[in-house]
């Protein structure tokens, strides 16, 4: 890992102003960094702020309703203060993103070739002929069979797995330094998921790009990530190297998540559940946001927001009771 990270997010805060005057704290003081060539998993459940964070990196949040503060440093830019024109040069070029639903992110009225070629011409210039050759090469790299023929097909002619591969080919068109993948395999069957994960590993090895993988599937995280950040109610509650997160999680929420996945080796009659509900983010609680659902809660937990502290090198937890092991031994 190199010393200076490729992307460094500090104190990112995102608030949405609703039409009814309510303010929702979607992201609250997030610090993150990803080194060149590393894969960071961003994990959490619906509404925890993981997708909003990625949209902020891409500069895709609506300016009129989203209030953003903090800094996102990438490649010498602060993405939050970069003018739109420069941002457009970065997006699709050095920064790329793939989404969960490939059908809604491909334009149905253009062939897949047109869409990839457009990206290449916009950022790299050159002739249409050479761009087309590059597009065919990209489709081959993502294992689309007979790419010379497929390139002239429309998105509706392709299967779900194939469309997701086209999206990946398009994201890779300009050799991005950072690829954000938002639930890239959630809509796919396990067999296709395996193909896409394999492909992402291959591409990372070949290009050295950094990846931020957003998912709620801890199995997928274990497979492709080097480091993991767990988000809950707009905050990062735990950050750790992948091995440590799965072997010795230090935030109760992470423990609850791990316990709620059915396991293959062990047939439990009942799975662990995290009782209660996510707090209302229009009025986040004063103390720890997970306190109301936490089996290890103390009075102190509800008094003041817990800081994110380093439990062991590289392993951070936002829990005043961490390390957790002594609590049960």
């Amino acid at each position, binding site marked *: 890992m190199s010393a200076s990270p490729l992307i460094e997010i500090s104190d990112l805060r995102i608030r949405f102003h609703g039409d009814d005057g309510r303010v929702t704290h979607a992201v609250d003081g997030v610090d993150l960094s990803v080194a060149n060539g590393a894969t960071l998993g961003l994990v959490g*459940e*619906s509404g925890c702020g993981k997708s909003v964070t990625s949209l902020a990196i891409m500069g895709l949040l609506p300016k009129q309703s989203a209030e953003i503060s903090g800094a996102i440093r990438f490649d010498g830019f602060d993405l939050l203060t970069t003018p739109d024109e420069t941002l457009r040069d970065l997006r699709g070029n050095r920064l790329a993103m793939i989404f969960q639903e490939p059908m809604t992110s491909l334009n149905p009225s253009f062939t897949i070739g047109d869409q990839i070629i457009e990206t290449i011409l916009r950022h790299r210039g050159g002739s249409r002929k050479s761009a087309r050759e590059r597009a065919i090469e990209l489709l081959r790299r993502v294992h689309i*069979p007979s790419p010379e023929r497929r390139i002239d097909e429309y998105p509706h002619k392709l*299967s*779900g*797995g*194939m469309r997701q591969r086209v999206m990946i080919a398009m994201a890779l068109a300009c050799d991005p330094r950072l690829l954000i993948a938002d639930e890239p395999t959630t809509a796919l*069957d*396990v*067999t*296709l*998921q*395996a*193909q896409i*994960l*394999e492909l992402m590993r291959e591409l990372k090895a070949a290009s050295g790009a950094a990846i931020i993988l957003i998912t709620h*599937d*801890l*199995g*997928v995280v*274990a*497979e492709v990530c080097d480091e993991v950040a767990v988000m809950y109610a707009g905050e990062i509650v735990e950050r750790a190297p992948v*091995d440590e997160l*799965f*072997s*010795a*999680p230090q935030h*109760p929420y992470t*423990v*609850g*998540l*791990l*316990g*709620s*996945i*059915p*396991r*293959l*080796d*062990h*047939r*439990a*009659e*009942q*799975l*662990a*559940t*995290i*009782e*209660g*509900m996510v707090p*209302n983010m229009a009025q986040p609680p004063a103390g720890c946001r997970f306190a*109301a*659902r936490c*089996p*290890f809660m103390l009075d102190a937990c509800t008094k003041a927001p817990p800081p994110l502290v380093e439990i062991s090198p590289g392993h951070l937890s936002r829990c005043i009771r961490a390390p*957790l092991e002594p*609590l*049960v*031994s």
Partner: protein
Amino acid sequence: MTALLEVESLVKHFVAERSLFGRALAHVKAVDGVSFSLEAGKTLALVGESGCGKSTVSRLVLRLIEPDAGKIRFGGRDLLSLDAGGLRAFRREAQIIFQDPYASLNPRMTVGQILTEPLVLHDLVPAARRAARVAELLRLVGLEPRLARRYPHEFSGGQRQRIAIARALAVEPKLIICDEPVSALDVSIRSQILNLLRTLQDRLGLAYIFVSHDLAVVKHIADHVAVMNLGQIVETAEADALFAAPRHPYSRALLSAIPVPKPRAKSSRIVLQGEIPSALNPPTGCRFHTRCPYVIERCRTQMPQLVPDGTGHATACHRTSELPSSAAIVPSDGGFSPVLEKLVAAFSSGPEAARSGGVSS
């Protein structure tokens, strides 16, 4: 023991294309000769990729769509010969819950009305006792009775799925078809619903047909599993036997691809090459032969039959006996450390159980 549900050689072809004069030109062979049986109080999981016909089977079993051929017997009765009245009575015994609890509840009815409707339709409970029965149903699925006055939009996804389950339970069915019931839910909510389904099965003796593409969930909930590919069952076995050693090459690939929550898990993953063939024009012979790593000439021409081995494990593959051992194919998550196991246990026995199910207003 006689089976609650017996399905024999079920066939359903949908017309995909018609000529100008309405003559069928092409058929999707959604279900093509499917047989299985299910005992009362047990869970059968149907697994397979999108388009394999698992959801169609579940709808055929309820006669929500009519099969082209085959037999369905429920509690010994022939379902396909039932008239409208008989079918209506049958609906009291078999219910279905869907993947999307948002779409399956009428947004203009309160939860109380939603749950009262089946009681009235089937004339189950006298009017005076209906409110009490609704309260009982809500408690059964872990919701507070006072929530009966609220509308579906006031609930979270997990709570809506609980309401859908309560509605299915209203008629005291013997069989519930669960069509991807937890796929749209977050991990922590998913475990709540799975626990609820398990508890209800134990308490009420329900049988489930569980349709899912999430194999870890299937391993957790199912007694018996049928693996489907392009409208046919390619392997069926006790869940434990299947996950210990899948036999059909397709089951092997499917089970080997399960992502497990353990970094650097030892994996002998079989990544299938090629695309899923279309059910519009399925391959000749074995329908898996275009993607099978063990394909031989015979597979391309001759369709293998589902052959039972005498222990309740049946496989439809010409090469079953010649294939390499599959003992290590299903990835292992290795389990938790004892300390982590105890930490997780704190969640299951948490003191906060009473707080569940509340809606913040």
